[in-house]
């Protein structure tokens, strides 16, 4: 692999490519919580769904259905029963797509600016959407108006929900923590432990804290309780030589509670925050990875390889840019935490 720039191979990890990929960059990937259905939203205004078939170590994909927005789509989320997909984007709305029943998409949420994040909160039977209009809005899907609008200090960039914990990352490095049992008041507002723009957040599966990733190739591990502040740390990743790439995606493994990071350098890594180890470093693809997702049992890791705009417009050649979605089957050693051996400290 070249030491400079990005490797030439789009698929150095020999992952399985998803058939009929989007024609422009992927902005979000979401697996159904119930079955191996994968949804991708993309800059070509589409929301596509594939069925992922897996038998043993072979994995395949079948394109199932798609819907269109009027403008690029930025985010997606599944309802907890796996029947319905929500997608939001630059058309400033969220569409509800009852794809399992073959129903038509309907608009269920509106904002004054593009919708960057959307999440379904099963415990509340509500949808939450975060937008660049500096609001969070909660929707009960049958009313045209939000049941609640929460003002944010800045544009919403990232959001994660593990009821009752919700963490919202905004521009200007604000991180706002909500206790969804009392969603109308901020539980806590902090400045990101990272010194650069927030890119992604992921709540711990045990709801005791969250991860935050920034454009400066760094991840912060942050605990909420005052007693546990001493456990907080940050670490560097997705860097190559003098170039520091953005951390674009953070996903906890649904079973082992380790996590994956993916970045603009085209690499994805698996980590264990508790033993502070990198479990596996995968080879870099020739383009950035803007988003990724584990399936419901953590046996499949889907990641998109396409241009994420990290090098601006002049480094984007629409004629040659290729968008791929790959499926990686993580081995247990890659995603299962292990004790730290040789605790003699840092070298």
């Amino acid at each position, binding site marked *: 692999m070249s030491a*400079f*720039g990005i490797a030439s191979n789009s698929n150095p990890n020999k992952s399985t490519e998803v058939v009929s990929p989007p024609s422009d960059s992927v902005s979000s990937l979401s697996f159904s919580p119930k079955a191996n259905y994968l949804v991708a939203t993309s800059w070509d205004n589409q929301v596509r769904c594939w069925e992922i078939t897996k038998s043993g170590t072979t994995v395949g994909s079948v394109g199932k259905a798609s819907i269109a927005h009027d*403008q690029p789509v930025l985010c997606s989320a599944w309802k907890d029963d796996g029947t319905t997909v929500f997608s939001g984007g*630059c058309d400033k709305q969220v569409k509800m797509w009852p794809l399992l029943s073959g129903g038509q998409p309907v608009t269920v949420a509106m904002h*004054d*600016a593009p919708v960057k994040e959307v999440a379904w909160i099963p*415990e*509340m*039977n509500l949808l939450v959407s975060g937008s660049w209009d500096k609001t969070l809005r*909660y929707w*009960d899907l*049958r009313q045209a108006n939000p*049941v*609640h609008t929460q003002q944010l200090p800045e*544009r919403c960039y990232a959001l994660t929900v593990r*009821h009752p914990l919700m963490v919202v990352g905004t*521009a200007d490095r604000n991180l706002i923590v909500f206790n*969804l049992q009392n969603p*109308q008041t901020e539980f806590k507002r902090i400045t990101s432990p990272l*010194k650069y*723009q927030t890119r992604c957040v992921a709540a*711990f599966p*045990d*709801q005791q804290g969250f991860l935050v990733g920034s454009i*400066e190739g*760094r991840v912060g591990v942050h605990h*909420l*309780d005052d*007693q546990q*502040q001493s*456990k*907080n*740390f940050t670490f*560097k990743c997705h*860097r190559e030589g*003098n*170039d*520091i*790439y*953005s951390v674009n995606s953070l996903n906890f493994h*649904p079973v082992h*509670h380790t996590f994956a990071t993916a970045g*603009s350098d085209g690499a994805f890594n698996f980590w264990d925050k*508790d*033993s*502070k180890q*990198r479990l596996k470093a995968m080879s870099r693809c020739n383009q950035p990875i803007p988003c990724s997702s584990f399936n419901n049992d953590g046996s499949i890791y889907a990641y998109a390889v396409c241009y*994420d705009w990290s090098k601006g*417009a*002049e480094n*984007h050649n629409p004629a040659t840019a290729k968008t791929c979605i790959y499926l990686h089957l993580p081995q247990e*050693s890659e995603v*299962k935490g*292990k*004790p*730290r051996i*040789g*605790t003699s*400290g*840092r070298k």
Partner: protein
Amino acid sequence: MGKKKKRVSSDVWCYYCDREFDDEKILVQHQKAKHFKCHVCHKKLSTAGGMAIHVLQVHKETVSKVPNAKDGRESTDIEIYGMQGIPPDVLAAHYGEEDDNPSKVGKLEVPSSQVGIIPGYPPSTMPSIYNPGLAVPRAGWPAPPRPPQPWFPQHPVGSVPPTAPLGMVPQPLFPVQTMRPPTAPPGLPTSFPVASPVSQPLFPVVSTNGMPSQTSPYSAPTSIPLPSPSDLITTDPHNINMPRAYLTPGFQGGVTASHSYASGPNTGGPSIGPPPVIANKAPAIQPATNEVYLVWDDEAMSMEERRMSLPKYQVHDETSQMSSIDAAIDRRISEGRLAGRMAF
């Protein structure tokens, strides 16, 4: 092992925000990035006055306050460059304040002698309430330590779902009037948003299927390969030894001390509007220093926001679309258009 650098109270610090630095060179970079940056075009100037004049002459706006400065230190009239130009009274006050710090340090619960052994994991005198892999029921929350509300206690795996725990009355999440659609069609079930808050337990029921059942990663078989040293997460010593550091905005050690971040050659100048000029230059051009480059270095805008401003992604109503984004961003975009700098 451990941290070599002893933290002596730094004598390099920023006049505007009191943040401390190991090196004046880094301080100057900090000031350029945080306090002397033009809010319109993000050009980094060398002094507050220079920035004000730039904004006045180039953008026809007046800047009277230094951005990100503490109250009382926002004046653009005082010429500060690194440690130079700080008024003597402020200088004296700062060092007086420094003497108070030992009490602050004393609050840290991490004995520094232990830190090196397992960074970030202070020897705990109470049972770990942290390790999510442990299937041992926790003995509740260790007596609420301080007035600030504690975060939820973790639920023991496999515990009986708490039915109305602690006798608390479930509270509606949103005001009643907004919970039920006032004009709800009679045909629709009315239990919708109302039902869930009412049946809401105060504390979450952690579903057991999401947790590893008895598979503690710590009882690992011996066949597990040893991690190579490079796989150990290298944490920032500052964040370990000073765990509360980032809670006090005035102190942020860490990264900047180890290397300097430079902007790409083009981002130093007025980079108005899309297309962005991002620092990703061929490494060969770079001098052989340990300067590193953020591939995406626009703090004011995310990649998606920049991408969206491309005409290709704008459909019909680009005026209304733009109206919702910050005025500053609008300006940058339209200036970019006027200047004909749009790609394609």
